[in-house]
């Protein structure tokens, strides 16, 4: 490769000459292969990839035609090493040295893109060859990063060729210092270090301060965990900072600049040092720059990794060789900065923006961003998000766009929970605020800060109390320890948080935390102390329920705080089943004991073994290695294998009567436990059959009737009386129950009223309500669906309706859903099964009208949707695309868009307090309604939920009713828990060998659609032991 001769730049035309020379040299190459040599890609091996490319090119004598350029960060750090092929703009990802051959022989020599190395869309697997089309890049605005990843950061001439140093030349040639400051002011550039102070104003203060000499200081002490913007920028384009500093020096009247940079950034340090040397060699730093008489020099100072040295006064102390400790302001650095002299102290990113503003003009710059704040902002996107890396978007970009458009949301279908903005002393922003436009003011209002621009995404597996604890621990350990509130206050806050996360939380702890936090914010010396409580305050603000769960119920909903549970699966089970316990027993072949352990809490092991949404499996740690342990199937196995269900312990009757209204999972579970405790329990059911939704809404192919009935029968055998065809409000009332001597009532009537679409034509023949449809199918009613069936909705009811429709002989069943597939509430397994059975799906559509012919539904008008603003659920509200309506022919429509409660049984309005959504309000500890002695649980308090949640409420209610009636509230235990687990031998030290889960056989799809035979077949004896042995025994800590 030819070298541009080193010259001393004396004028604009020298810059032109360099550009011409570089362009001439570049024009000799057919291709440029830009290999990312950012620290991220280097760590994943990009240097070896570059070497391989060079070697292979050399071997083919292509070195003169194809140029390999090592660049700074291209951005998508999560998919490195990456290579960008120019001029084609094709980005290859996740490269290994051996891929060099394919790229050269395939792409370079034959113009064939190497598909396996290209980006693939996660949903449909389509390849996206061009970088600009990859969503991660498509939604960004790379102004500041325009050179990063495009130039060789060790060659100043490449920077010059892309108009580098034009701004300095312009400033020195034709602008007064005041002009420069004016330009910066009108660009609305604000401090990118986080506080957002207007840069132009800061400069003018420094310029007018009366002392000499003056200094420019660049803060490159990027210390936030998960922040790497400055590092990437410096590694990829060290020149913009240097040029920006020189311009700042000219503007404020300084001749010396310091760059304070972390010593932990060796690559950035080296590139910067090299760039400074080059600038000096080329006459762009030093004495009399470009003959203007202006002199400016830059010196680097290494920080030793103290987070607090990012605080400006601490940074100044550190530059002076003192302990990096903040001091009170005023005096501000603009007045008394380094060595006590006026100092313009700016963040790297702020200064790097300056050349662009001068070059392109303030108007252009302020065209990006908001009215108060111009330009773009870099963020480092990290955490539980699919695309991590360095990004740049205009200030004021919606948070949701950053996380979903660029970051593509959370991994593995996990729910997005919050995003921590502004580093450890920033705040957590929950999903209801995803629509916020990210700028200084709005973040502040939300209790977060811009900080330096770190965005750490957290999914549902993040415990917000633990996160608050983590960030506080960081802030405490990085506190300089000078001021009392920060040093001692953080310690006390941490102590409280540690207490909470280890189950020692006390009532009043939240309030104590808040008070302490507010006083620390109010009194601490520097920004670290004044913002350090943010994570705690913001998580309390948005996730107070999680704190309360820890303190009150000693439960960590996210399954993070280990002290609060024995195993993650148990913690995840709403009903609190001793999951690891029964798995251990199963692995030893002790099936009977396993079943009685399950039945200790859950009277429906067979039902749950089939249709449970198994939240336990999502938290199974085995899933991090290969697949989660098949807990549901294990449960199903024991419930079937143990021929006679072991008789549960039954206390002799205590003579106290309790009524349960509703025989769904919640009501029957409560009745089961109450009976075990000795209560004389009677269940009242409005329908002719017991079992509630389990009986009437879950099709047989998922839950055969006899399986359910056997478990109901077992409850009956305990002495529970079940009275069917007894409707509250018609056949009896609360008062009549109390009159009959019932001492307490558990109301568990569920939510079985289907929601309507609210569109024209819903009352036509051939339009079914989802639940009613399933009930009719279950009860064996005759239904004529016709050929073309459309199901509207995205939940289990919709899927079951679609599958049932197929089984009833419909030839074309399509599910219409108004969001994306990944937004569906039905489980992945359900959707996949439906697809296999021939159900089709159409996403982002909504019916707007159903047209009938002769009173029968015949056509449906639909609107095509696109994602709109983020709503308070953290999802994008779908909005119609103008002019994209379409019509489909239909024979019938099943509307399964959700259920609500039906409280028409209340004869006295206001007898029991309800919410505006029609659910009953209960005390969350006692489950008691506003009416004394009347308790409620299940869907009637939650809205439509899962069977296992209904069971959980039943357990809780039974305990609460026992307490209400003078008991201890303790469930009856039948197994020896402690001894049980100790008896199971397993090797604590054993290495985990990858072993996928044992799949349960399914009925082939072609057989399934023929009728309502159970689809899933369950484990064999061999399978079950093998599967149970996959358990990692997360509860092992109990033994240690």
């Amino acid at each position: 490769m030819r070298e541009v001769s080193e010259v001393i730049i004396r004028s604009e035309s020298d810059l032109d000459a360099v550009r011409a020379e570089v362009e001439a040299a570049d024009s000799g190459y057919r291709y440029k292969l830009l290999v990312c040599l950012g620290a991220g890609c280097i760590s994943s091996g990009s240097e070896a990839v570059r070497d391989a490319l060079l070697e292979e090119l050399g071997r083919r004598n292509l070195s003169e035609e194809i140029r390999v350029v090592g660049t700074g960060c291209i951005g998508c750090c999560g998919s490195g090493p990456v290579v960008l092929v120019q001029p084609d703009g094709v980005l290859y990802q996740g490269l290994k040295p051996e891929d060099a051959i394919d790229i050269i022989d395939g792409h370079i020599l034959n113009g064939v893109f190497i598909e396996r190395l290209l980006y693939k869309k996660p949903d449909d697997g389509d390849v996206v060859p061009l970088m600009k089309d990859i969503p991660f890049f498509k939604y960004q605005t790379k102004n500041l990063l325009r050179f990063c990843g495009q130039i060789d950061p060790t060659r100043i001439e490449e920077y010059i060729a892309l108009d580098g140093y034009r701004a300095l030349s312009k400033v020195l040639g034709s602008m007064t210092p005041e002009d420069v400051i004016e330009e910066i002011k009108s660009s609305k550039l604000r401090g990118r270090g986080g506080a957002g102070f207007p840069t132009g104003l800061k400069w003018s203060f420094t310029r007018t301060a009366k002392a000499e000499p003056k200094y420019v200081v660049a803060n490159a002490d990027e210390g936030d965990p998960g922040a790497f913007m400055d590092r990437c920028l410096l590694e990829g384009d060290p020149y913009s900072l240097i040029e920006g500093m020189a311009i700042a020096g000219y503007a404020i009247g300084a001749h010396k600049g310091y760059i304070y940079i972390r010593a932990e950034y060796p690559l950035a340090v080296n590139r910067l040092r090299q760039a400074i040397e080059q600038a000096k060699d080329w006459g762009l730093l030093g004495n009399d720059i470009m003959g203007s008489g202006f002199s400016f020099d830059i010196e680097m100072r290494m920080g030793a990794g103290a987070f607090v040295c990012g605080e400006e006064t601490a940074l100044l102390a550190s530059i002076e060789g003192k302990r990096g400790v903040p001091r009170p302001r005023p005096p501000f650095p603009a007045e008394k900065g380094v060595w006590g002299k006026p100092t313009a102290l700016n963040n790297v990113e702020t200064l790097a923006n300056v050349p662009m503003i001068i070059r392109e003009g303030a108007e252009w710059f302020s065209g990006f961003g908001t009215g108060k704040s111009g330009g773009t902002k870099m963020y480092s996107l990290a955490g539980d998000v699919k695309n991590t890396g360095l990004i740049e978007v205009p200030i004021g970009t919606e948070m949701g766009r950053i996380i979903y458009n660029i970051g593509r949301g959370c991994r593995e279908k996990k729910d997005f929970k919050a995003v921590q903005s502004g580093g450890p002393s920033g705040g957590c922003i929950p999903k209801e605020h995803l629509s916020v436009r990210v700028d200084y003011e709005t973040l502040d209002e939300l209790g977060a800060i811009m900080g330096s621009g770190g965005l750490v995404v957290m999914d549902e597996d993040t415990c917000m109390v633990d996160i608050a604890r983590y960030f506080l621990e960081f802030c405490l350990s990085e506190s300089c320890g000078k001021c009392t509130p920060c040093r001692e206050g953080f310690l006390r806050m941490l102590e409280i948080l540690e207490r909470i996360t280890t189950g020692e939380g006390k009532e009043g702890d939240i309030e104590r935390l808040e008070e302490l936090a507010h006083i620390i914010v109010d009194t601490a010396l520097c920004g670290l102390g004044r913002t350090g409580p943010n994570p705690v305050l913001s998580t309390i603000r948005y996730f107070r329920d999680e704190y309360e769960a820890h303190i009150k119920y000693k439960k960590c909903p996210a399954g993070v705080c280990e002290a609060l549970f024995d195993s993650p699966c148990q913690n995840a089970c709403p009903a609190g089943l001793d999951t690891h316990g029964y798995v251990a027993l199963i692995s030893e072949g002790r099936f009977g004991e396993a079943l009685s352990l399950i039945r200790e809490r859950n009277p429906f092991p067979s039902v749950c073994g089939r249709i449970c949404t198994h939240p336990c499996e999502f938290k199974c740690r085995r899933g991090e290695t290969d697949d989660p342990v098949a807990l549901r199937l294990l449960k199903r196995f024991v419930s079937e294998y143990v021929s006679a269900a072991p008789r549960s312990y039954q206390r002799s009757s205590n003579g106290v009567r309790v009524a349960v209204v509703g025989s769904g999972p919640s009501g029957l579970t409560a009745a089961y436990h109450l009976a075990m405790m000795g209560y004389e329990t009677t269940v009242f059911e409005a329908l002719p059959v017991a079992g509630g939704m389990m009986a009437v809404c879950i099709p047989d192919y998922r839950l055969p009737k006899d399986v359910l009935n056997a478990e109901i029968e077992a409850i009956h055998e305990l002495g529970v009386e079940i009275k069917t065809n007894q409707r509250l409000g018609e056949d009896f009332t609360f008062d009549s129950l109390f009159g009959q001597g019932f001492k307490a009532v558990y109301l568990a009537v569920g939510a079985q009223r289907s929601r309507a679409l609210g569109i024209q034509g819903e009352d036509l023949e051939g339009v079914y309500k989802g639940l009613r449809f399933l009930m009719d199918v279950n009860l064996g009613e005759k239904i004529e669906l016709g050929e073309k069936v459309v199901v509207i909705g995205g939940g289990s009811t919709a899927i079951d309706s679609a599958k049932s429709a197929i089984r009833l002989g419909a030839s074309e069943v399509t599910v219409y859903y108004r969001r994306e597939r990944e937004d569906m509430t039905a489980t992945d397994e359900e959707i996949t099964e439906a697809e296999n059975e021939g159900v089709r799906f159409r996403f982002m559509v909504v019916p707007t009208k159903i047209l009938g012919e002769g009173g029968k539904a015949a056509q449906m008008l639909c609107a095509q949707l696109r994602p709109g603003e983020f709503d308070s659920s953290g999802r994008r509200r779908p909005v119609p695309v103008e002019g994209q309506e379409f019509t489909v022919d239909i024979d019938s429509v099943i509307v399964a868009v959700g259920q609500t409660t039906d409280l028409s049984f209340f004869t006295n309005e206001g007898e029991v307090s309800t919410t505006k959504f029609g659910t009953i309000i209960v005390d969350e500890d006692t489950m008691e309604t506003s009416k004394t002695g009347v308790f409620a649980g299940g869907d009637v308090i939650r809205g439509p939920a899962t069977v296992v949640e209904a069971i959980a409420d039943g357990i809780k209610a039974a305990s609460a009713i026992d307490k209400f009636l003078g008991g201890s509230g303790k469930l009856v235990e039948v197994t020896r828990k402690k001894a049980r687990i100790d008896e199971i031998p397993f090797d604590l030290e054993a290495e985990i060998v990858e072993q996928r889960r044992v799949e349960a056989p399914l009925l082939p799809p072609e057989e399934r659609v023929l009728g309502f035979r159970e689809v899933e077949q369950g484990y064999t004896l061999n399978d079950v032991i093998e599967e149970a042995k996959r358990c990692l025994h997360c509860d092992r800590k109990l033994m240690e």
Partner: protein
Amino acid sequence: MSEVELTIDGRRVSGRSDQTILEAAKENGIRIPTLCHHPRLPITGACRVCVVEIEGAPRLEASCATPIRKGMIVRTDSERVRRARRMVVELLLTRHKIHCLTCESNGNCDLQDLAYEMEIDMDSLSFEIEEPDDPVDSSSPAIIRDPSKCILCGRCVAACQDERVEHILGFVERGSDVRVASGMSQPLFDTDCTYCGECLQVCPTGALIEKQSRFMGRWWELERVETTCPYCGVGCAVELYVKDGRIVKVRGAEGGVENMGSLCVKGRFGYDWVNSPDRLTTPLIKREGKFEPATWEEALDLVASKFQKLKKVYGSSALAGLASAKCTNEDNYVFQKFVRVCFGNNNVDHCARLCHAPTVAGLSKAFGSGAMTNSIRELLGADVIFVTGSNTTENHPVIAMYIKQAVAERGARLIVADPRKIDLVDYATVWLRQRGGTDVALLNGLMNVIIGEGMHDEEFIRSRCENFEEFRRTVERYTPDLVEEITGVPADKIREAAILFGGAEKASIVFSMGITQHITGTDNVLSTANLAMLTGNVGRESTGVNPLRGQNNVQGACDLGALPNVYSGYQPVDDEATRIKFEEAWGVPLSGEPGLTVVEMTNAAYNDDLKGLYVMGENPLMSDPDLNHVREALDKLEFLVVQDIFLSETAQMADVVLPAASFAEKDGTFTNTARRIQRVREAIEPIGESRPDWEIICGIAERMGYRMVYGSPGDVMEEIASLTPIYGGIHYNRLDGEGLQWPCPDRDHQGTKFLHEGRFARRRGRFHAVEYKPPAENPDEDYPLLLTTGRQLQHFHSGTMTRRSGVLDTLVPECLVEINPVDASRLRVQDGDRVRVVSRRGEIISNVKVTGRTPEGSVFIPFHFSEAAANVLTNAALDPLSKIPELKVCAVRLEKEC
């Protein structure tokens, strides 16, 4: 500074624009509690106890760090403020070892006071108390550091780093692990701590306490007496804390004008000798070679009658007296009056002869006044400070503190000229390491460059000086190259230093014994005066020639006429009008002939010309050169009276010993090195039967037939003022607080901060053409090493006081001969080896310390140790003009003792 109006707690108040809210509030009688704040330490804003609410500010702000602004509305006592403050105090209490029961700071603890003030109930703190149990560091003899009582306010660190520029204490670790550590987290005793005790004084809790005063008294039991430190010439204002007739603690007086509360290890910890069992408690009369206690009547009668008899037998000239630079002005005035009246001659001198006689002689010749031209704290304002022949950090630690502050905090540049690598070298821009005794050449070399570079102040020279041309012709010959040859200082360094000094706007010269204790002492001093005049650095603030006086009252003893040639106020005895004035005042005829100087007295005794000697508080048997000779001379005396607080080496040879009261037991005044007259106050009753010196003298005078009656030292000062123009305005009721700097001619005069403003005391400053002369005795084949003597930080003078101080004697228990590693290896000696040091006059045995501080070919011996008295070796060769002996240079050899 403009006046600023603001509102505090609803009151319209005014302050100055450079004030903080805390200061403005205080001035307006509004109290804001503080912990980390200390008026003389830099603002750190660490504790956050002083937070206040400022209208419009989003958060509370520390009042100690926030400047006032016009129209500001401040609330210091709102509910929000009180809650925050209370939380801060509670947070501190939560991790504090609450041992108030026996804590030394009980009753003097800011944390305790705040907890009480905020009505904090220890039974219902917001947090559980978690008493730290960090180990107590009691490694040092002086200071106990208990980190568990530390509230991390940072005062001690600021005191150590910013105030004393010592950097022994510092913060280590981060977050809640932050703590104060000494050195590299070593026990304090293993660090280079000088035990100035500044940390101890500023500590608001019991984290730093004084070891020797532990359990000696609760704060509320102690009586506080403000007085002046008895050690060096800085004249630090001290507070003595007394319980039951015993000094149990000493602190620097925060209002002290010279020290601003600072002290050094001696001043702070070296006070226990006052109550030492060795103190003389009764007069002693030697009978058959043994001392026997006597009554005052007996002793005074004997002394008076013996002096009378000697005077009658041998004539007036056979008697002489040595006054004392450690005694008060009043003692010295009375003493010299006694000698002049009762002995009838001017044979009175004192140890200033051994230190600053050349200063007085030289500066008088050049400027017309022998005193330090400027004030101590003016050093803070200098651009360049030139320290030559002064090991300031050890001899005048508090002055050294200002020099270091000037360098470290204010950007001043320091030039050090010293053969030894003294501590100040670390702060110097240029270090000139000249050969011992070559100062004239070095100074001439500097001036040669300054003139050559045209950096001299022609206007100043022309308008205010004389004899420049003759001087210039001499200096012209001292080119840097020639000077390099004489002094061994590289010519480049000479140029560098000269340009630095010549370019300064305000340059101060500081010197001490290294300049004066030579046979060329006066020439050396004249050269410093030449340098100051050449560059116009006299008669302005932060400039001048600043000799540092070694003892607390050398200046005063000289001022009050304890010199053979002058009455008080440097009024010559050979001036007739003056003599007549004193004759009239004292009512007796006086001799117009100057008397004997110190070494001349010794020689006279040796030659049998002197028969009777009255020594007040001096110890010539330790402090004078060639001690063997001194011993022989004193042996020949017929009658020796020593008046002292201890049975010193000299006292042991006396015929009569008179027990004197120490500085803590009497009233009076000291005059410090910067001409400041300050009060000495009685803190305890005189020990045993001891009496103030002036009272004893008056007793003898009366018995010799001259009635000197003073009701109190104040009366003595009245007489001094009436006869001494420069003390004309001095009166006790004017001396409370800052004291007064002479010249202070009348009662309305406010004293003089710096001399020679506008005009020299002798009208025109006189340049002197001074030629280099080599020392009297240079190393040779037999005695190949150059010996230089001096003091060290922990000890003082002949050691009578400091060697009886537990702390000081523990810190430095023995004499160590400092020798360069090169010489050491040649002589095959190592640290701790015993050596015999031999000069032409005698020999001593001492242990060795091998150190690069001392230049090759040279040894250094401190002269405090009687068991290895350095002055056995020194040369009594005298400067012809000032009669100072050449204590700084003589030739010795070392022999390794087996």
